[in-house]
């Protein structure tokens, strides 16, 4: 039986379609299709000036806009050979880690929703996760004025400085989140039903993952110890030591385990960044009156950073004008989805939902 799974389906995490060829409830073959959320972001980037691009890429991975902006402006700064002030770098890392907590909370919540249903235990975890995510959005609102699409990274630094007393607020929020983490543990990782549904389901081999270019928690759950924050430090990560969470099994359970461990690690890093936040300027860019005055010399570069979902790359080809000649975004979710045809066959329809949820794809950045 051929089952069209999506694009209008409650648990495809956006508009995503899989053609599932079924034998009873067992999947024989799976063909994923993406492109339902294509918004021509890369083409749009060629038409707009460099300084106008941050609000555009905010909407790519709409669960962690901070890291989208960061990857973009870091590519521009690399081309301009611009030194970013230390405070700005620390702020960027702090934002990225807070965003990682928020994003992983959402991932755990929606994954539980996939397993437990909108009218059941799953939604309880989901709403609890959103409650904590809310605290982080409030923090970002204090800094940037926006709850979601921040537009706070600029070429050469940051746009908004931290308001007075913000560090204490961050610490208070982190304390709350840390205190509530065991609740999620009890409802997810330690729960027998959750374990039954996730252990040995959707096992992704480490070598296959590397071949497909999968990065981030999905790769680390397959036993490959790879994290750009530690292996190719950027922003403030060269000044702190990042402990990378790795799991061996490669199944849905391992992926959830890695995410929860990363939330804990991010909480620790956030505290470090708040405590060690240096004083100084937050922007080294030359002020311009018009967007067209920011021009990038001829050349090309690739910059990759570790977002909550993996390596988000920006490949920029500049031709000396105020617009990019070509701006290619490498979304980690697209590579995660490419594993589906390999790991779905042999699993049931219920598992397909669990596997898709555990890969944590964001269609906004898959289709761009």
């Amino acid at each position, binding site marked *: 039986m051929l089952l069209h799974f999506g694009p209008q389906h409650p648990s495809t995490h956006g508009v995503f379609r899989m053609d599932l060829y079924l034998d009873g409830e067992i999947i024989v073959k799976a063909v994923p299709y993406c492109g339902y959320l294509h918004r021509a972001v890369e083409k749009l980037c060629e038409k707009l000036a460099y300084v106008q691009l941050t609000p555009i890429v905010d909407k790519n991975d709409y669960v962690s806009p901070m890291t989208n902006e960061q990857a973009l402006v870091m590519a521009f700064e690399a081309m301009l050979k611009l030194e970013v002030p230390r405070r700005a770098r620390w702020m960027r890392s702090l934002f990225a880690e807070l965003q990682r907590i928020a994003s992983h909370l959402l991932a755990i919540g929606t994954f539980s929703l996939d397993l437990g249903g909108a009218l059941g235990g799953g939604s309880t975890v989901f709403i609890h996760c959103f409650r904590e995510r809310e605290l982080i959005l409030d923090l970002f609102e204090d800094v940037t004025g926006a709850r979601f699409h921040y537009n706070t990274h600029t070429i050469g630094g940051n746009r908004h400085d931290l308001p007075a007393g913000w560090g204490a607020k961050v610490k208070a929020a982190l304390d709350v989140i840390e205190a509530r983490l065991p609740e999620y543990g009890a409802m997810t990782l330690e729960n027998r039903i959750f374990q039954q549904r996730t252990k040995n389901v959707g096992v992704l081999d480490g070598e296959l993952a590397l071949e497909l270019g999968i990065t981030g928690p999905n790769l680390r759950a397959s036993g490959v110890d790879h994290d750009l924050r530690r292996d190719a430090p950027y922003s403030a990560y060269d000044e702190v030591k990042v402990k990378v969470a790795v799991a061996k099994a490669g199944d849905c359970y391992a992926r959830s385990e890695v995410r929860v461990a990363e939330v804990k690690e991010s909480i620790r890093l956030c505290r470090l960044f708040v405590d060690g936040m240096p004083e100084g300027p937050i922007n080294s860019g030359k002020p311009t009156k018009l967007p067209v005055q920011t021009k990038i010399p001829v050349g090309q570069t690739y910059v990759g950073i570790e977002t909550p979902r993996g390596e988000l790359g920006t490949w920029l080809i500049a031709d000396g004008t105020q617009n990019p000649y070509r701006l290619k975004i490498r979304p980690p979710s697209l590579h995660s989805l490419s594993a589906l045809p390999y790991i779905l066959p042999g699993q049931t*329809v*219920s598992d397909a939902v669990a596997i898709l949820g555990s890969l944590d794809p964001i269609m906004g950045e898959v289709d761009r």
Partner: protein
Amino acid sequence: MNEFLQGGLYGGGIIVAIMTSLLFVLWTERKMAARMQSRIGPNIIDPLGFLQAPADVLKLLQKEDIVPEKADRALFNYAPVLGAAVAIAVAAVVPFSATIVGADLDVGVLYLLAAGAVGVLPVFAAGWGSNNKFALLGAMRAIAQSVSYEVPLVLAALVPVILTGSMKVSEIVTFQQNHHWLIVWPFFLGVPAFVLFMLAMLAESNRIPFDIPEAESELVAGITTEYTGMKFGLFYMAEYLHTVIASAVAASLFLGGYDGPFAPGVWWMVAKTFGMVVAIYYLRWSLMRFRSDQLMALCWRWLVPTGVVLVVASALFVVFAG
């Protein structure tokens, strides 16, 4: 004549009472779920949200009734009606007090098991009649699940029958009044049989963690995918009816039914039923759901053998200790 009159009056009364209680049950569940999820719950229509359920029914009644073009109209249309009817039918033999009972059959337990088993039919009719792959998958799961869980349900219900020596529900309750509630003594039979009965009942009424037939995160809405308006509402109602009546049956068989001090029997029955309902909803809003094959494994590997052991043990208990 007298019996017919009594049956008609009490039966009608019970149906009206249960239907009305659904509104309260719905309200309780919503408010409870909201509190568990640190939300407030319905509070717009009136400050306490009591009118939310009637408002929902009103909305469902106004919805357009869509029948898919390629659906089997007869099957598609009678499935929700039968679903609700079957759910109510079970309530007929449940005594709500010494006198308030629809029909006190001599084979009451057999009747309620049989009536419950008919519940597979509307599910199958809906799944097949909708001509929708998600509905079909849901129906497939539901039938496998109901047929399997029928076995532990029967075995668990046999335990009170053997211990009390009667299939008449009112006599089972009277026995518990005169001796002990079955969950109190013999507790080593009563408690496991009660748990087994509740698990099987939850599976029969498609409640989380056993709600895989309509697993909305996998099968969109399972058997109800193609249904609109009040037809969907009837399925929804049947599910709630099932929960309430299953709780009432469990209260009668294991918790002493209308037996209790101080207050009149019917209040005890209502209190016990309501307590069970709340427990079921507590489970529902804190657990995730099993996978279809894991559910089958749970049934055949654990619940059925446990049931067989319990039945044999209660027979031995009656022979040697009773």
